[in-house]
C-alpha cells in the first residue's frame, strides 16, 4: 500500500513502489486527464506537479512520492492556473488536445517560478513537452498572455 496525496486527498493505492505514478493515477484512481504519451519522460504528456514542480509521472515511481503533494490537471487551481487556462482558451491553443494537460501543467510551473519569462526561458522550460499537432506558436503566445494577465 502506498499513500498518495493527490489534489489534496489521500488515496491508499495497492501498488508496487516501482509502478510509475502515471499508471497509479490513470489505472488505479481513474483520473484520466494526465496522459500517456511515451512512457520514457520524453514528451511531457504525463506532466503533474509534485510539491509544485512539474514532474513526468510516467517516470516518477509511486515509491518516490509518498508524503508529497501531487497535483493533476483535474485538481490544479489558483491564480496562475486560471491565467494559463484563460490564455489557452482565449488564443484557442488546442488542436487534438492530448498533450495540453501536460503543456498547461508545465506552463503553470514555469509561470509560478518565473513571472515574466522570455522566449528563451519558454524554450528551455517547455522543452520537455511535445505537441505533435505543432501548436507551439500559440503555446508561446499563451504563456506570454498569461504572464501579462498576472501582472
Amino acid at each position, binding site marked *: 500500500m502506498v499513500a498518495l496525496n493527490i489534489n489534496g486527498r489521500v488515496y491508499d493505492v495497492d501498488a*508496487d513502489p516501482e*509502478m*510509475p505514478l502515471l*499508471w497509479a493515477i*490513470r*489505472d*488505479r484512481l*481513474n483520473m*484520466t*486527464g*494526465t*496522459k*500517456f*504519451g*511515451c*512512457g*520514457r519522460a*520524453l*514528451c511531457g*504528456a504525463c506532466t503533474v506537479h509534485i510539491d509544485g514542480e512539474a514532474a513526468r509521472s510516467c517516470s516518477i515511481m509511486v515509491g518516490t512520492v509518498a508524503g508529497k503533494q501531487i497535483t*493533476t*490537471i*483535474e485538481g490544479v487551481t489558483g491564480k496562475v492556473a486560471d491565467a494559463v*487556462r484563460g490564455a*489557452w*482558451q482565449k488564443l*484557442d*491553443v*488546442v*488542436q*487534438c*488536445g*492530448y*498533450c*495540453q*494537460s501536460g503543456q*498547461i501543467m508545465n506552463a503553470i510551473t514555469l509561470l509560478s517560478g518565473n513571472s515574466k519569462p522570455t522566449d528563451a526561458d*519558454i*524554450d*528551455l522550460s*517547455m*522543452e520537455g*513537452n*511535445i*505537441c*505533435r*499537432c*505543432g*501548436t*507551439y*506558436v*500559440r*503555446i*508561446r503566445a499563451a504563456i506570454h498572455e498569461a504572464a501579462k494577465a498576472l501582472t
Partner: protein
Amino acid sequence: MTASRRTFLKGASALAASTFLLGTYLPLGRTARAQHGAAPAASFDPNVFLKIDADNVVTLISKYFEMGQGVTTGLATLVAEELDADWTMMRYAFAPNNVQLYNNLVFGPVMATGGSTSMVGSFDQMRQVGAAARAMLVAAAAARWGVPAGTITVANGILSHAAAGKRATLGAFATDAMRLPVPAQVSLKDPKDWKLIGTTVPRLDSDGKTTGTTLFALDVRRPGAVTAVLQRPTRFGATVASVDASAAKQVAGVLDVLQVPQGVAVIAKDTWSAIRGRAALKVRWDTSRAENRSSAAIFDEYRQMMSGSGLSAQKRGDAAAKLAGAARTYEAEFTFPYLAHTPMEPLNATMELKPDGAEIWSGCQLQSIDEHVAAHVLGLTPDRIKINTLHGGGSFGRRGNPTGDLIGELAAITKAYGGRAPVHLVWTREDDVKGGFYRAMVVHRVKVGLDAGGNIAGWDHRIATKSIFTGTPFEPMAVKNNLDASSVEGVVDSAYELSDFDVRCFNVTSPIPVLWLRSVGHSHAAHVMESTIDELAHLAGKDPIDFRAALLSGKPRDLAVLNLAKERSGWGASLPEGRGRGVAYHVSFGTRICMVADVTVWPTRVKVDRIVAVVDCGVAINPDIVKAQVEGAIGFTLSSALRNQITLRDGEVEQSNFDDYEPTRMREMPQVEVHIVKSLERPSGIGEPGVAPVAPAIANAIFAATGKRLRSLPLGGGTRA
C-alpha cells in the same frame, strides 16, 4: 455561392438525398425523428445532425472524427449560421456508426474522415440542416404566436416578433418544431449576411481540452475491463514460431497470455502490469517470409526497378524529344524514408462483447472499415457492431487504416479472451514507432531540359513507391490499371504548365505496411517538384518566384497566392551571411499554399527562423482554425523535413520512441505568419495542404544561404550541436 437557394435533393452523391434530410428516417420521410418516440418529449431531437434542447443548447452531431483539425467547430459554425443560433449555446457530440446517415459525400458510400474533405463535403449539407431547423422553429413560433412565419426574425438564438411583442429562445419551440414537417426546400443565406462563417468563433473543444475532461479513447474505463498489450513480430511479415509465456504469467497483475493471428497478447489488470508481462514473454519468430533487409538495400531495389518502363501516369507532348534537343538538362534523384505518424495518443481501443453484438470505443476515423473488420473477426454482421467514436489524440492518418489493423487486433484478442471482460488494447510508443503503416519509402528521379532561353523543355519524372490503396477496400476508388493515384499525386496534377511531361510509376511490393500520412503523396511530391523548379530557376538565372509565376500564367488564384507571399515575406531583400530565404508553392486537396522560409545555417545545424504562408482554401469558414492548421502543419512537418526517418537494419526498425524519432520541440518552432486570401469560392481542404510546401521551402532557403542543394529527406541538421 450565388445559388443561395438550393434544393434539398441536390447532393454530391446518390446517398446525399437521405443524409441531409434533417431528422428523418429512411426511406425518405417528412417528419422529424423525434416524432417516432425516440427522444425525450422536451427536446427537438432529430438525432441525426442536430439536437436542440428546451434549455436552448444546440448540439451538433458530428459525422466526422475530431483529431484536432477543428471539424466539430467548423460543422457547428455552418449549422449555427443558418439556424441563427447563439454560438455560446453550441455543443457537439460524435455520431454513431451509420453509413446511410453519416456518409462522406466526397468519397462515400463510407463513414469516414479524411482527405481534407470534411468542410468540402458538408458545406451545403450542414447549412441546409441549420436552415431546415430554423424554418421548423419559425413555423412553430408562428403557429403559437398567431403571426405569419415571414414576420418572425431570428438572431443569436432568439426568435422574435417585434410588433406582437414576442420573444423566445429556439429551445422554447423545440418540442413544437419536432412535430412539424421537414421543409422540402430551404434558402441559404447570401454570403454577405453571414455572421459566423468567415469570422473567428471560439473552438468548441477548447474548454474540455484545457481542463483534462475531454475523453479520448485511452480514457475509457469500462466496468471490469482488462488491459491488453500485444507482442507483434520484430520483423514485418514474421509469424510466431513458439511462445514461452511462463515468466510473463508470473508477473503480478497478468491475467492471461493469448496467441492471436497478429502476435501474442498479454492481458493484465492494468497497463503497467501488461507492459511488464510482455517484457517477460519469450517469443521465437519465423522470419523466413519476413522483410530481412536494411533500408539501403531496399532503396537499391527501387533504383533497379526504375530502369524499367513502369506504368505511365501522365503523358503530355513529347518529353523525350524535347530533352534530346534541350540546351541543357538537369537530372536528380530524391529519396524519402519511411515515416511514422506518431500521434500523441498511442493507438488504443476498447471492445465489449454483448449478447446482441459488440461495442467499440475508439478514436475512430473510418467507422465503415472498423465495423466490417470487427464483424468479420467476430463472425457477426456489421450492423451488430456499435462504435462509440471518441476524440483522437492526433491521427495524421494513422487512426484511419483501410485494413482496420487496430480493431482487427482488438477483436481477435477480445474473442480469444472469450468475452470474459471488456478488453482495452493499448499500444505503447515503441509499438507505434515500430508498428508499420508508415508513409512509404519513395524514390523520385527527374530529368528536365532547359532551352536556350531558360524555359523548361521536356520533363521526365519517375516515381517508385509502394501503393497505399492496392488490396484495400478503397482500391476501386484510387487504383486504375495498377496505378495508385496517391503514388503520383502532386506530380501528375502539378499546377505548373508543363507541356512535355512524362511521368512513370514503379510499384514496389514489400511486406512493410504503408499508409497515408497527412498530405499523402504530396508529402514527397511537393518536395521534388518545388526543389526541382527552384533548381531550374537557378540554372536559368531567373528569380524563383518569377520563374514559378511564368508557369502559372492564366491562373489568377494561383498567381494571387504567389504574389501575396512575395509581398508579405519581404522577398528580394538581402539577408546577412549564413541566412537564406526560400519559396515553395503547391496545390493539394484543392487548396493553394505558398510558403517562404527564412533559415540560419551553421556548419552542423539549421534553424528555421520564420515561415510566411499564404493560403487560398476558398471560403475560410473559421479563419483562425485555418491559421492554426497551417501553423500546426509547419510544426508537424519540420521534424520530418530535418531529421525524422524510420530505417531498417536487417529488417528491424531502428527507432523506438521520441528520442530517436523526435518530433519538433518548442525551441525549434519558427515564427509563423499565415495570410488567408479572402475568397467566396467553395471551401477546399485545410488539414493537410500545409504540410506540402514546408520541406522544399526550407531546402530552397538552405540553398539560398549556402549554395548547397539538399535533395533527399530528411535534410539533416536537425540535431543540436
